[in-house]
C-alpha cells in the first residue's frame, strides 16, 4: 500500500478553510442551543402549565429522530413549507440547533433539579422572591454541576457538524470528500481528516474534565 500525503499539502488552504467552517458552525450552533436550552428548561420548570407538555413533546421527539433526518428535512423540506431559500450553512445551523437545544434543555433541567428543594424553601422563608432564588441560590450551584454535561454536548456538537456534510455545508468533512474524490486518494485524505477531528475533540473532552475538577467544589452543597 503506497501512501502519498502530498495531496494534503496541495489542498492545504481548502481543507484549513473547512476546519474554520467546522469550528464556526460548532460554536454558533453550540451557543444557540445553549441559549434555547436555558429558555426551554426554565419554561418547562417555571412556565405556564399548558406549555409544559409541548416542550416535553419537543424534547422527546428530538431524542427519537436522527440528526441526519433533521438536517435533511431542514435543508430540503423546510424551504418548500416556509417558501424561503437557505444556504446550506444556515440550514445546518438551524437543524443542529433545533436538535441540540433539546439535549441542552435536559441538561439545564437536570442541573436545576439537582439543587435540593430544601434550599428553595429556606430562601423563601428568608423572604427572597422566586427569580432571586433562581439567580442567587439555585443557578450558581446548578451551573457548576451542568459543566461536564455541557462539555460532552460541545464535543457532540463538533461531531454532529460533520453530518452537515450531507446537506453540502462546506465544512471539513465535506471538503475531505471533495478532495478524496478529485485526487482518488481517499485513504490519505480521510486519515488526515480523522487526525484533525481528533485534535479538535480530544482537548475539548479532556479540558472540560480538567476544568471541572478545579471548580467542582463550587457546586457542592
Amino acid at each position, binding site marked *: 500500500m503506497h501512501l502519498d500525503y502530498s495531496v494534503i499539502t496541495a489542498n492545504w488552504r481548502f481543507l484549513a478553510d473547512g476546519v474554520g467552517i467546522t469550528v464556526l458552525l460548532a460554536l454558533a450552533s453550540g451557543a444557540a442551543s445553549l441559549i434555547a436550552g436555558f429558555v426551554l428548561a426554565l419554561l418547562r420548570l417555571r412556565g405556564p402549565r399548558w406549555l409544559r407538555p409541548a416542550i416535553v413533546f419537543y424534547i422527546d421527539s428530538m431524542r427519537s429522530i436522527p440528526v441526519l433526518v433533521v438536517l435533511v428535512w431542514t435543508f430540503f423540506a423546510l424551504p418548500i413549507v416556509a417558501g424561503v431559500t437557505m444556504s446550506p450553512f444556515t440550514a445546518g445551523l438551524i437543524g443542529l440547533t433545533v436538535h441540540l437545544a433539546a439535549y441542552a434543555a435536559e441538561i439545564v433541567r437536570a442541573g436545576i433539579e439537582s439543587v435540593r428543594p430544601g434550599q428553595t424553601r429556606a430562601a423563601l422563608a428568608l423572604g427572597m422572591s422566586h427569580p432571586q432564588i433562581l439567580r442567587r441560590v439555585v443557578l450558581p450551584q446548578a451551573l457548576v454541576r451542568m459543566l461536564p454535561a455541557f462539555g460532552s454536548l460541545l464535543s457532540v456538537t463538533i461531531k454532529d457538524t460533520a453530518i452537515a456534510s450531507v446537506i453540502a455545508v462546506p465544512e471539513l468533512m465535506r471538503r475531505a470528500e471533495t478532495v478524496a474524490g478529485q485526487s482518488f486518494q481517499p485513504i490519505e485524505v480521510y486519515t488526515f481528516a480523522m487526525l484533525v*477531528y481528533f485534535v479538535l475533540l480530544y482537548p475539548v473532552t479532556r479540558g472540560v474534565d480538567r476544568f471541572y475538577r478545579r471548580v467542582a467544589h463550587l457546586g457542592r452543597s
Partner: protein
Amino acid sequence: MTLDWSVVWQYRAALAEGTATTFLLTIATMAIALPCGIVVAGLRLYGAAPLRALATGYVELFRNLPLILVVYWAFYVLPILTGLGLSALATGLAALSLNVTAYNAETFRAGINSIRRGQVEAALALGMTRTQALRRIVLPQALRRVLPVLASTWVSLFKDTSLVSVIAVTELAYVSMQVRAQTFRVLEMLTAMAVIYWLLGYPQAKLVDWIQRRYAVSE
C-alpha cells in the same frame, strides 16, 4: 404547492424493508459491541500495560471521531486493509461496531469502577480469589448499574444507523432519500422518513426513561 402523500403508500414495501435493515443493523451492532465492549473494558482495567495502553488508545480515538467519518473511512480503507470485498452493509456494521464498542467499553469500565473498593477487599478477606470477587461481587452490581447507560446507547445507535446511508446501505434514511430522488416528492418523503423514525424512536426513548427511573442508583 400540491402534495401527493400517496407516494408514501406506494413505496411502502421499500420503506418497510429499509426499516427492517435499520433494526437489523441496530441489533447486530449491539450484539457485537456488547461482548467486545466488555473485553476492551477488561483489558483496560486488568490487562498487561501494553494491552491497557492499546485499549485506552482505541477507546479515546473512537470516542473523539465523528461517526460519519468512520463510516467513510471504513468504506475506503477496510477493503484495502483486509483484502476483502465487503458489502456496504458489512462495512456499515463494522463502522458502527467500532464506534459503539468504544462507548460500551467506557460504560463497563465506569460501572466496574463505581463499585466501592471496600467490597472487593471484604470479599478477599472472606477468602475469595480475585476472579471470584469480580464475578460474584463486582460484576452483578456493575451490570445492573450500566443498564440505563446501555439503554440510552441503544437509542443513539438506532438513530446513528441513519449515517451509513452515505455509503448506500439500504436502510430507512437511504431508501427514503432514494424514493425522494426518483419521484421528486421531496416534502412528502422526507416528512414520512422523519415520522417513521419518530414512531420507532419515541417508544424507545420513553422506555429508556423508564429504565433509568427503575434502575436509578441510590446509595
